[in-house]
């Protein structure tokens, strides 16, 4: 039919605008480079959570595990590898991605058969157990965490570098997911979400589909972990790498806030949430975490359909 329908065209418009912003942002606003880098990290968080939670109906509180594996793999490889900075970083990212995908295969085979709230609570346990194990394990610095090697470039160039790296990662993640959601695989994810038993009874190979989806999320999360650890320069087991009560919950919240199971919802949710969160940190000194808890409750209770859902309902009302 009409390949250049209105929605199709605006999709490309938004992507173009975002690409421009992503490329120009750090140059125009170098002082905000770290914040912008975190924004792209949040986009990766929301997109990867949404593949399971929004598209497949598996609400995970444990995706932070793969981020943490990425952090630690990079830190260990860069500490013990004896390589120059960028070679070390690159190998750390590769090792982290491989380790996270292997972990996703194992955890996926074990846990993706678990349904509903058992899966949600089980993955919550997974994330916290990982953080606690890291916090007690001397090889990875136990409770005091690990420091990463110093970025070799001049002052201020580190932020710019990681800002662009995380932007590239977020863009790649978005494009890959966007393509996937247009294939039979995307439809299969939705089928599993809407009625798992029916999908089984129609002969879909649900187990490999689910494990592949989680592995793909793990892949992008591990890369984002390695980059973020290097950007911050330090990882704490509970507050950075396996930060279940912050990053781990934010993933869920951003996807829901934007509208889960939609293409742009997670991206939108990440933008809105990140800005709100920065404002909290600026204006609610000392109480920002309390406010975040409250924000979660308010969003979930009063706004569970998200911005995209609200928008769609409004448009529907306008046309009918």
């Amino acid at each position, binding site marked *: 039919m009409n390949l250049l329908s209105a929605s199709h065209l605006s999709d490309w418009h938004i992507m173009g605008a975002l690409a421009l912003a992503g490329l120009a942002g750090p140059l125009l606003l170098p002082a905000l480079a770290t914040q912008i880098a975190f924004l792209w990290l949040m986009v990766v968080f929301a997109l990867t959570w949404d593949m399971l939670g929004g598209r497949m109906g598996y609400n995970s509180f444990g995706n932070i595990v793969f981020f943490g594996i990425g952090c630690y793999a990079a830190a260990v490889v860069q500490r013990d590898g004896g390589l120059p900075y960028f070679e070390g970083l690159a190998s750390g990212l590769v090792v982290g991605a491989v380790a996270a995908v292997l972990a996703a295969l194992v955890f996926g085979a074990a846990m993706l058969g678990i349904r509903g709230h058992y899966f949600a609570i089980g993955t919550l346990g997974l994330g916290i157990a990982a953080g606690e194990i890291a916090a007690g394990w001397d090889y990875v610095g136990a409770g005091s965490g690990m420091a990463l090697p110093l970025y070799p470039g001049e002052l201020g160039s580190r932020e710019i570098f990681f800002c662009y790296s995380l932007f590239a990662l977020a863009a790649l993640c978005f494009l890959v997911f966007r393509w*996937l959601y*247009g*294939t*039979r*695989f995307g*439809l*299969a994810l*939705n*089928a599993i*979400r*809407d*009625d798992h*038993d*029916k*999908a*089984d*009874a*129609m*002969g*879909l*190979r*649900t187990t*490999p*589909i689910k494990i*592949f989806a989680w592995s793909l999320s793990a892949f992008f999360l591990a890369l984002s972990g390695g980059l973020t650890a290097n950007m911050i320069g330090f990882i704490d087991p509970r507050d950075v790498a396996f930060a279940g009560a912050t990053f781990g919950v934010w993933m869920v919240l951003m996807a829901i806030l934007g509208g889960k*199971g939609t293409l742009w919802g997670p991206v939108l949710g990440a933008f809105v949430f990140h800005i709100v969160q920065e404002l909290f940190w600026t204006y609610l000194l000392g109480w920002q975490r309390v406010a975040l808890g409250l924000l979660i409750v308010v969003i979930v209770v009063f706004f569970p359909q998200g911005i995209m859902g609200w928008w769609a309902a409004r448009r529907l009302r306008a046309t009918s």
Partner: protein
Amino acid sequence: MSALLEVRNVTRRFGGVVANNGVSLTVRQGEIAGLIGPNGSGKTTLFGCITGTHAVDGGDILFEGRSIAHLRSAPIARLGLLRTWQQTRVYSEMTCAENMAISAREAQGGLLSLLRSVPVSTRRKGDDLLAFAGLHEKRGDKAGSLSFGQQKLLEFAMALMNEPKLLLLDEPTAGINPTLINGLIDRLRRANTELGVTLLVIEHNMRVIMNLAHRITCLAHGEVLAEGPPEAVRADARVLDAYLGVA
């Protein structure tokens, strides 16, 4: 005609309730078989046993001569044996067209084959079958927004999309507007004759099943009460008793 499905002495318990007690029945290649019985007589449970939702406590089930009693529902479906549900099961947040696309044979393939968009031929076939079920103008609507009767039709069309050898239908006319029932009977027959799908139909409406089925099995209290051509089963005093006694 050879046997496509053979159920041999299948028993299934739920705690103390024996929902199926040594049930045996045969569905022959190409026929329309009927399964009747009062409410709670174990018809739906038997479908669950055949298609892998329930564990079977005793007996065996053969499809094309091989035992499927211990297979899960997905491999059974890939052998060409599908079912529909009494309470309907469709993918409610997906459009009717998407429901059809993901029900195609090729969607049962491995991961690599899933990483492709739905081919035009599949879309067209889905549209044709939606038209066959009388749902063509709903193709862009979410399946969850359809009425109960429309969902039943969609579920039937999804099953046909998969080109099964044997299709088990659980009360296909329940909840359908009575004026549309004759049209539905006609579609079931055409699925059988034109698309070559063997059918095993649970049906409550006696007029429908007498009209439709070549052979009928009657269950009561989880056991086979009578079996044979429609006229013989209808004339059987025990069948009359079971219906009058319970319903």
